[in-house]
């Protein structure tokens, strides 16, 4: 029982890190970036190759995946994404999903389509068990590690957004770019940084998730649905919304598959439908400036 809860939380946390970058670009920058998963995939592949070819330890690969994906994000934001900001949403959707398909094809061409396996260090492979019977709590060390990393990230993100000068600049730039620019905020730089951090988070999520979710070239399309569910259920105006949504979905998915395996993956969709019928704007939304 508790093990199921634990697995669900770990899975949800992972979804959160993968999706939070999308929530930021979608909610704060009002840009629909369906190529978000491609950045996650980049992080995953980077980790696999840094470990296999360069022999780097797993822990060193995580920040590397973040930085590399963030740099790629910054580069693409500057060159490809920025001209798209003013365009209608449909254009953005078509543009970014095209990018995702290109990423899929490129990885397929250069790396090959087979599953990539991450070899975790020994200390992350074990398992600790507490209690017994219905209250047995079995914790895989890797899942524990994911929970810890993601919890730290959440707190840091929340602090940055709500307490720092950058956070308030970002919120100002989003709510009214013209006035913000008039106040001396460099809107372009703020957006560039935000996009880079969002992509970097995706890269980190991809690196963390390769072990559990698997990694092959179809990754961006395979998990796009999950990102979108997290973002649509959680709402996009805060960090807490996607977090709660990701946890809820993670737990519902794991518990659903455990208790009613016949429903398979459908539990998640059912939950999403119910929540969106109840709150079409997502779980936690404040009225925005627009």
């Amino acid at each position, binding site marked *: 029982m508790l093990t199921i809860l634990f697995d669900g939380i770990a899975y949800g946390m992972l979804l959160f890190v993968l999706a939070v970058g999308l929530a930021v670009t979608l909610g704060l920058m009002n840009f629909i970036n369906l190529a978000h998963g491609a950045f996650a995939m980049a992080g995953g592949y980077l980790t696999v190759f840094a470990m296999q070819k360069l022999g780097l330890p797993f822990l060193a690969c995580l920040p590397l995946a973040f930085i590399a994906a963030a740099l790629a994000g910054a580069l693409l934001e500057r060159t490809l994404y920025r001209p798209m900001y003013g365009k209608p949403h449909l254009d953005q959707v078509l543009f970014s999903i095209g990018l995702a398909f290109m990423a899929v094809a490129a990885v397929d061409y250069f790396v090959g*389509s087979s*599953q990539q396996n991450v070899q975790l260090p020994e200390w992350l492979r074990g398992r600790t068990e507490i209690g017994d019977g219905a209250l047995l709590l079995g914790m895989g060390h890797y899942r524990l590690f994911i929970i810890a990393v993601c919890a730290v990230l959440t707190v840091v993100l929340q602090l940055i957004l709500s307490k720092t000068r950058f956070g308030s600049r970002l919120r100002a730039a989003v709510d009214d770019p013209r006035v913000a620019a008039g106040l001396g905020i460099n809107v372009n730089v703020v957006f560039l940084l935000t996009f880079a951090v969002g992509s970097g988070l995706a890269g980190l999520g991809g690196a963390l998730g390769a072990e559990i979710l698997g990694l092959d070239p179809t990754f961006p399309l395979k*998990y796009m649905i999950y990102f979108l569910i997290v973002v649509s259920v959680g709402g996009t105006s805060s960090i807490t919304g996607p977090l709660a949504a990701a946890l809820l979905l993670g737990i519902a998915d794991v518990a659903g*598959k455990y208790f009613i395996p016949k429903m*398979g*993956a459908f539990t998640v969709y059912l939950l999403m439908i119910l929540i969106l019928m109840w709150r079409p704007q997502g779980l936690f939304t404040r009225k925005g400036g627009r």
Partner: protein
Amino acid sequence: MQRRHILQTAALTALALSMPFASAQDGNKFKIGLILPMTGQQASTGRQIEAAARLYMAQHGDTVAGRKIELIVKDDVATPDVTKRLAQELIVNDKVNVIAGFGVTPAALAAAPLATQSKTPQVVMAAATSSITEASPYIVRSSFTLPQVSVAMGDWAPKNGVKTVVTLVADYGPGNDAEKFFSERFQLNGGKVVEKLRVPLRNPDFAPFLQKVRDAKPDALFVFVPSGAGAAVMKQFLERGMDKAGIRMIATGDVTDDDQLNDMGDGALGVVTSHHYSAAHPSALNKKFVEAFQKANPKMRPNFMAVGGYDGMRVIYEALKATKGQGGGEALLAAMKGQIFESPRGPVYIDAQTRDIVQDVYLRKVEKKDGQLYNVEFDVIKGVKDPGKAK
């Protein structure tokens, strides 16, 4: 002026001469349309089969009974509607003599009506749902069927201390076949199937299913998932400490696919699977096959898909030889039925009634040989027919 005129005439004559010549040569070609998933999730299947088919042609020459063999490879991304379109194009426009390949069951089924209508033999080199050969009288299979390999496991397990089992299969045609035929045979042998779990094909996380297995505490977990997903199941099986809890993992050979096995790490050691082919099969013919394959494709190790493609080419070559290069659909088909030969996997034959392959099924255990992981065969069940056809 004069010279220009001559040149023009010469050019026109050359053109006029070359045209009937070209089409005559074209008509003499024997075309094989190979429809395979070369990109996307199933791409490893396509690459293995194409590499093996080309290897067969390199080893046996590209002229058979006076006809030049042409291989036309098309990528269907394992999507049935694309398969259907490609098969149609190949049959109608390219006038292929045989269609072959087919990485997944829906793809093979999508092409089946076209094979029937156009009387074109369809050689299935990978897809392994039992019912495929029943979809058209023109289908011949050179790969295997899941009932074939799962039944072998259902026989072996009860004799080796496995009394209770939970089955975990991917929820699609082959998975359902594996579940049904393994369970039936296992129960017939006095075993008990505690629970049958089906996981969605696009399943991100096996944790909840494996936890359920762990709580059910069977003697063993029987797994079928398409190759690729096998590594994830195995890792999480270990992560969950199920081997320490006394649960064994048994599976069909897709889980320990030779193409992937080395990347799975030492956790795979000792997993027992039943399948029709292992790259470590100890026969002279297989050693030759594996060596030649790896020489031509340095980064790949041939797996069961490759052997399906290799033998499929043999079936086509021999049928063409037997028909003395005539190559009509009916005649080819008749010559494919009943072929008996030595394959890299061991002795096989194409059952004339079912057009399905009959072969030995081996029980294998993952072991380390020369620093690499291999499925090492330790037992064999001879001449297994597809149990799905025995009604």
